[in-house]
């Protein structure tokens, strides 16, 4: 049997990856439609780059984060600030308590991306810095600020959460 064509290989990869990419996109955007648009955009750019990409999932994740930053930067200039912004959280449980997703959605884009990469994707500080295009120190301080915000917003509930990555690096 010969090697699978680009389209066969890409189709198989999408089948395995699309749902995970959508979840990552949702963690970043906090909105279904925006997440869907981002995933579509990233799948297309991955298809176009398929032949020169060794690790398509890593490529797609990096593209996802960068595309998210671009869109966010065009919507507002919040990327210039690492301050927590005060916006209404769309994610609330039926009893109107703030969910973790809701608290996450209150964070500025760079903090959201940092939390997603560190705690959802289990990337190391170094790899996270690579994706975000910043220093490891910036990743650490951004993570710290993000967790402080989540702790502040979720209160006692957050104390029951263990902010530990799969690689064992407790923040």
């Amino acid at each position, binding site marked *: 049997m010969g090697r699978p064509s680009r*389209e066969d290989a*890409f*189709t198989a990869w*999408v*089948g395995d990856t*699309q*749902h995970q990419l*959508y*979840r990552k996109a*949702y*963690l970043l955007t906090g909105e*279904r439609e925006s997440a*869907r*648009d981002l*995933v*579509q*955009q*990233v*799948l*297309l*750019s991955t*298809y*176009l*780059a398929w032949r*020169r990409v060794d690790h398509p999932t890593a490529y797609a994740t990096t*593209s996802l984060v*960068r*595309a998210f930053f*671009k*869109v966010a930067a*065009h919507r507002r*200039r919040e990327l210039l600030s690492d301050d927590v912004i005060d916006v209404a959280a769309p*994610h609330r449980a039926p009893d109107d308590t703030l*969910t*973790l*997703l809701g608290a*996450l959605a209150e964070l500025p884009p760079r903090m959201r991306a940092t939390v997603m990469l560190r*705690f*959802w994707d*289990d990337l190391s500080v170094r790899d996270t810095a690579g994706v975000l*295009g910043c220093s490891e120190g910036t990743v650490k301080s951004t993570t710290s600020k993000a967790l402080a915000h989540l702790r502040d917003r979720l209160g006692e509930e957050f104390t*029951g*959460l*263990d*902010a*530990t990555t*799969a690689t064992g690096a407790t923040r």
Partner: protein
Amino acid sequence: MTTDLRDRLATELDHLEPLDDLTHHVLSRGRATVRRRRAAAGALVAAVVVAGTAWASAGHGGSGTVDAADQRQASVRAEWSERMAQVFADHLPEGFAPGVTATGGDDRQALEFVASGPQGEVRLNATVYLAEGLPVPACAATTPRCQVLTTPSGPATVLTKVYQDDRLSHASQIWIQGDGVQTIVNVVESGPRADQFSMSDLTGLASDVALRDAILFASAHDGELLGYATT
């Protein structure tokens, strides 16, 4: 007992409805984009041959694939930089020092150009979005001075004072939709309250055939320009 942050996120994400399968749609758009790029690349090569210009990368045998790829990338990036420097330099308002200076372009910073005007520096850059997925702003819902026009590159929207907050620098954007890609040109003032590019300057820039050629060039060399001029 503690709950892992990831477990808690996973639990909350379980309520997210599954996404419809995007494979067919993406393949369809991908094939169309590949076809357009091949056509654009063919047209560019033909144009270069007619002009008698040799590709900077042509003739590089290279001792290895990596060297050849690096040389090709450097060559493509240099050509993009040269093209855009010329485009921007040709549309500087009166009173500006001639020419622009390239900056950035390394350490994951996108390439941009700096022009020097009587009211301070202006930063200019252009990014070609390959996936054509950004929502184009509508004039009616955006800035006080906005214009939609048809350019050689495709339909364009010119926006001024993109950031309404007066504490932020005055920024203008040109959104161009064409040939399967989107291009956004940013013109950002450095000086406080400076506003040196008129609508006429911006529409002139948007309408330049050299800008269209630069966009075609970027589309045809998206790999070499990724993170530098394309995304």
